[in-house]
């Protein structure tokens, strides 16, 4: 068996050795996927220990508190955070207080934040990978169809008009943003509907144009706003991963999880689609239907995210390219790889956004205005160099 595998890797096997080579290929991807998944799990395990506050709640303290493991007073000796009265001795009450604190900071704040980053990262990367296949364009992202611009415009209008209330636990701004994003998608699909054959380039152009229009309208709304509203608008545009209230989280989840499932289910058809419309059709893929389903679920998922977190760029653009380098272009492997890497990428970016402001503040010796760097800034700082390097490589080869 060992011999046949070696032979097969060199690519000159007969039946048996060649099928062994196929198994080896699959296994190699499985190892890389598994490795990425393990890395992601490690990030999640460590996440209760990373945050803006320079407090001494470590990830292990948080996990012990959350899992109900006993933390003895001796273990907390010397912890300034637990020693509330400053007498150098940890009493039983102080220990109980620390457990509650560790649970709150570690899980209600940091872990919840990382979970949100995970969901957003998975969704944006999956949709990015899908759009790049769908439009046969390596620069396509979930935002290409003007979804982010539409969502932003919706939120801006809500801000300007003053719809700041909360309906059924969801902020009016989120609802308006979602409405704007979905509106743009429906308009794009309506434009594309005319022709029986939904050609991708036309759809792309329609989306880009509508996106530009929405951007112009955003400038208009900002121009006629007062200083206070302008400030809120600018903050929102920066993107944020602040933990959601449970109601908002409950709204996000049903919008994005179906997209994950649907995209994985159509991954085989997407492979065929990459061979060209005619070949895919002759193999039994309904190309029009595939395009509609993918654009539909990706748009809804992205709109839900834009509504909650503001526009977060570069995840959907960069991550699929990294995943492609790691596992190749078979969509059945590429999509899950993009999802895992996207989740990990955004968690790391979120950590960087929190830690960098703290570190910068400590270096400069004063408290900086905001506790976190906007997530969109970090994804751009990390994503743009990666993307340019990838582009450079592509030009070089």
């Amino acid at each position, binding site marked *: 068996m060992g011999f046949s595998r070696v032979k097969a890797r060199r690519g000159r096997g007969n039946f048996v050795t*060649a099928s062994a080579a196929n198994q080896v290929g699959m296994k190699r991807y499985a190892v890389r996927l598994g490795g990425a998944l393990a890395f992601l799990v490690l990030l999640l395990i460590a996440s209760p220990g990373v945050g803006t506050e320079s407090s001494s709640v470590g990830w292990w303290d948080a996990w012990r508190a959350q899992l109900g493991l006993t933390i003895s007073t001796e273990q907390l000796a010397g912890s300034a955070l637990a020693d509330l009265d400053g007498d150098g001795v940890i009493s039983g009450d102080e220990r109980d207080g620390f457990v509650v604190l560790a649970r709150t900071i570690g899980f209600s704040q940091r872990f919840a934040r990382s979970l949100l980053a995970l969901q957003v990262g998975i969704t944006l990367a999956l949709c990015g990978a899908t759009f790049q296949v769908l439009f*046969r364009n390596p620069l396509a992202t979930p935002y290409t169809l003007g979804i982010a611009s539409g969502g932003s415009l919706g939120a801006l209008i809500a801000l300007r008009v003053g719809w700041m209330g909360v309906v059924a636990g969801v902020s009016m701004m989120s609802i308006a943003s979602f409405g704007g994003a979905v509106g743009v998608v429906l308009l794009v699909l309506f434009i594309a509907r005319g022709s029986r054959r939904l050609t991708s380039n036309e759809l792309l152009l329609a989306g880009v144009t509508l996106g530009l229009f929405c951007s112009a309208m955003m400038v208009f709304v900002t121009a006629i706003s007062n200083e206070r509203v302008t400030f809120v608008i600018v903050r929102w545009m920066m993107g944020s991963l602040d933990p959601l209230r449970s109601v908002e989280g409950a709204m996000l989840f049903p919008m994005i999880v179906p997209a994950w499932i649907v995209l994985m289910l159509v*991954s085989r058809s997407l492979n065929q689609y*990459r061979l060209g419309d*005619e*070949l895919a059709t*002759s193999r039994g893929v309904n190309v029009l239907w595939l395009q509609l389903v993918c654009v539909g679920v990706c748009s809804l998922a992205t709109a839900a995210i834009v509504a909650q977190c503001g526009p977060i760029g570069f995840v959907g653009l960069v991550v699929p390219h990294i995943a492609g380098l790691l596992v190749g272009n*078979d969509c*059945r492997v590429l999509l899950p790889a993009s999802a895992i890497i996207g989740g990990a990428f955004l968690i790391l970016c979120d950590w960087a956004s929190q830690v960098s402001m703290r570190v910068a503040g400590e270096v400069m010796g004063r408290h900086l205005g905001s506790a976190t760097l906007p997530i969109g800034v970090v994804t751009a700082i990390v994503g743009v160099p990666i993307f340019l390097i990838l582009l450079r490589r592509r030009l070089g080869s």
Partner: protein
Amino acid sequence: MLQLDDVRFGFKSRPDFLGPVSLSVCPGECWAIVGPNGAGKSTLLRLMAGLHKPRSGRISLDGVKLSRVGVRGRAKRVAFMPQATSQSHDFNARELVLMGRFPHRSLGLFESAGDVAIAERAMTRTETLCFADRLVATLSGGEAQRVHLAAALAQEPGLLLLDEPTASLDLQHQISIFSILKETASRDDRAVVVVTHDVNLAANYCTHVLLLHEGKVVASGAPAEVLSPERLEPVYGVKLAEARVGDTEQRWVFPVSKRDADGGTS
């Protein structure tokens, strides 16, 4: 069996582009569709593949109207190899051939061992197994074309439709592709329809020939009858010479010069 009865087709700008065409393709037959550029060869092939719907007339597959067969069911029985194969060459040869198994799987993301075996049989047949793990983009035109042919064979269709599979290939690859097609028809008892510009290859390897000119069928039947210089000269507008090579019965046709309107040579 694929049956075409009085099939007509046209585009918005040219509503009477093609037809009427009547034809029946049976298992074991290898049909060549020949004719000048713009004669409607590829359009006819696409009609057979179900990629276009006929304006009038009827196309039926084993007695059932083609448009009623359903996309997945059609894909299991009819394989189509377009002229400009593959916009995406990011797959290696084995992956590309395995993708030909797509219509046969309903559940599960990955191919079964049976699919892998079928794909490898197709690759052995087309002599592509030796570069199974290379990216299709790195293969030569002839090698890539054989890989695409293997993918079509792996689809295990009753009817194999190919649009100019030997365009821009060298002599050796032309012969190799056509002998695979001939073998597929005669040995596996499948039906093959191939669009080609090479009348000599068609004459040598195909059992039947359909000659198209300006959307109309000029002649159809055995190669020796259809591909005579008398039939071909007015269609192509050239003067042709005919020769026998060695002591075979096979006649070869060569273009000699441009043909004048009155039929004489210039």
